[in-house]
């Protein structure tokens, strides 16, 4: 075939471009795969100090049922450093735990395999791993780190698409350490295990972004503290048992206060799909009044997510007046100093919920 020199030059340049683009893309994809598959190395060496010698005679029992407790943050009033101080490691424990994210995490399959290895605890700690399970041992130095931050460095805030680690992994570890600790003959080693479960719970609560992370953290603290209480009871360490019981007494109020706030923003009773699956909202204005009032008093970041999602639904399905009020609320939140709250509110202003998201997010109250 004879072509003009200028035409052949153009075609040859295009052909070379195709090769370069394909090669570049392949290289980039390989780099991304390598980078995402690379598991973090061992965590920085860390030390965990022993709990301070607290004077039990000065230990207060927080009055969660007193009217003043309404103003308290949903946090422990008792200093958990008395029970299980955090380690001083410079690493971020979230780097390791994020690898087990379901489906997308590079070690998701290992988490699935781990779940299959669990056995029922002879006591009441639920499904646990063997005491020498490889993954359980690998996790231990990560719990000696001082921080666990998932958001936004590891998982960016992406509205309802915001990712989350596989929380069954830390929950299983906490159960396993608490069970192993209680079963140990040496009470000092047993306490170390239970305190490790408590530290994991404290780390999970640091982010204060996602409610379920916080509740799993609370469950880890519960498991570890229950173990501490049993060991203290067995060894006759009544001061430690008293401290553990005060901490245990703070768990239920925090769960209830969490659910109280969630209930204030729950639109499920007012959202209904029609026969074609299209949702409509029939909500009294007084409910919106109450939700906005609750929102004004929020101090903890993790509850803002529910408020923002509720406002997002109202903005798109409410009456015109409700829509306007929801928009005002979101616009106020969108200029907050906290970038996590502000970004999420900005997302909610421009992203209407899909029918699938509504079905998933607001199951009928009787189906929960």
């Amino acid at each position, binding site marked *: 075939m004879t072509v003009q020199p200028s035409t052949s030059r153009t075609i040859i340049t295009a052909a070379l471009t195709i090769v370069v683009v394909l090669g570049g893309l392949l290289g980039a994809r390989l780099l991304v795969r390598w980078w995402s598959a690379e598991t973090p190395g061992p965590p920085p060496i860390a030390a965990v100090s022993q709990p301070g010698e607290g004077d039990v005679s000065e230990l207060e029992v927080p009055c969660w049922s007193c009217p003043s407790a309404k103003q308290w943050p949903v946090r422990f009033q008792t200093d958990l450093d008395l029970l299980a101080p955090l380690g001083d490691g410079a690493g971020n424990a979230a780097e390791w735990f994020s690898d087990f994210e379901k489906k997308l995490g590079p070690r998701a399959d290992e988490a699935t395999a781990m779940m299959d290895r669990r056995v029922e605890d002879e006591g009441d700690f639920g499904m646990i791993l063997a005491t020498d399970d490889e993954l359980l041992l690998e996790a231990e130095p990560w719990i000696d780190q001082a921080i666990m931050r998932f958001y936004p460095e590891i998982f960016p805030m992406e509205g309802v698409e915001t990712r989350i680690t596989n929380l069954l992994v830390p929950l299983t570890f906490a159960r396993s350490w608490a069970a192993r600790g209680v079963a140990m003959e040496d009470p000092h080693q047993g306490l170390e295990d239970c305190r490790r479960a408590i530290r994991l719970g404290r780390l999970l609560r640091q982010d204060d972004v996602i409610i*379920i992370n916080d509740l799993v953290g609370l469950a880890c603290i519960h498991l570890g503290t229950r173990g501490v209480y049993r060991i203290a009871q067995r060894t006759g360490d009544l001061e430690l048992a008293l401290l553990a019981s005060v901490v245990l007494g703070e768990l239920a109020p925090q769960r209830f206060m969490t659910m109280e706030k969630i209930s204030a923003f729950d639109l499920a009773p007012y959202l209904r799909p029609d026969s074609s699956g299209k949702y409509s909202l029939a909500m009294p204005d007084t409910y919106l009044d109450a939700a906005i009032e609750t929102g004004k008093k929020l101090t903890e970041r993790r509850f803002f997510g529910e408020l923002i999602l509720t406002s997002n639904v109202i903005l798109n399905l409410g009456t015109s007046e409700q829509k306007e009020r929801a928009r005002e609320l979101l616009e106020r939140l969108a200029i907050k100093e906290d970038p996590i709250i502000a970004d999420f509110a900005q997302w909610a202003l421009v992203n209407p919920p899909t029918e699938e998201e509504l079905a998933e*997010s*607001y199951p*009928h109250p*009787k189906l929960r």
Partner: protein
Amino acid sequence: MTHRPDPLFEGLAPPDPSPELRQRALAVAREALGRAESPDIWTRIWNSRPVQLGWAASVGALLFGHIVIGGVPPAESAFPAMPLAAATGANSELAEVADSGRLTVSLPGWEVDGQRASAKPVQKLESEDRS
């Protein structure tokens, strides 16, 4: 003004060109003029079978590489982080931990399959209460 060479260098004057040089140069020029124009680099590449095969092989290999390392990973989250009801919905262990039931409303009269439900009159509820 003409320049006369120094008599001292007369013996060193350059020789005259060969008398055949003109004929030879003209013959070579005539021959070149008669030859067909040689193709440029682009045309030579365009017509080169090895280059064509090399290009096709490299494109094929690169496409194969893309296929081997798999498709683009899904961008969406595998599991929702929020709201709480969605985050716990798929797993009973997490639901147990989160206990995402409502605290404030008992919702009498709500039926799952019905139309938008409304609470039954209190009087009727009381009359049904056998406890």
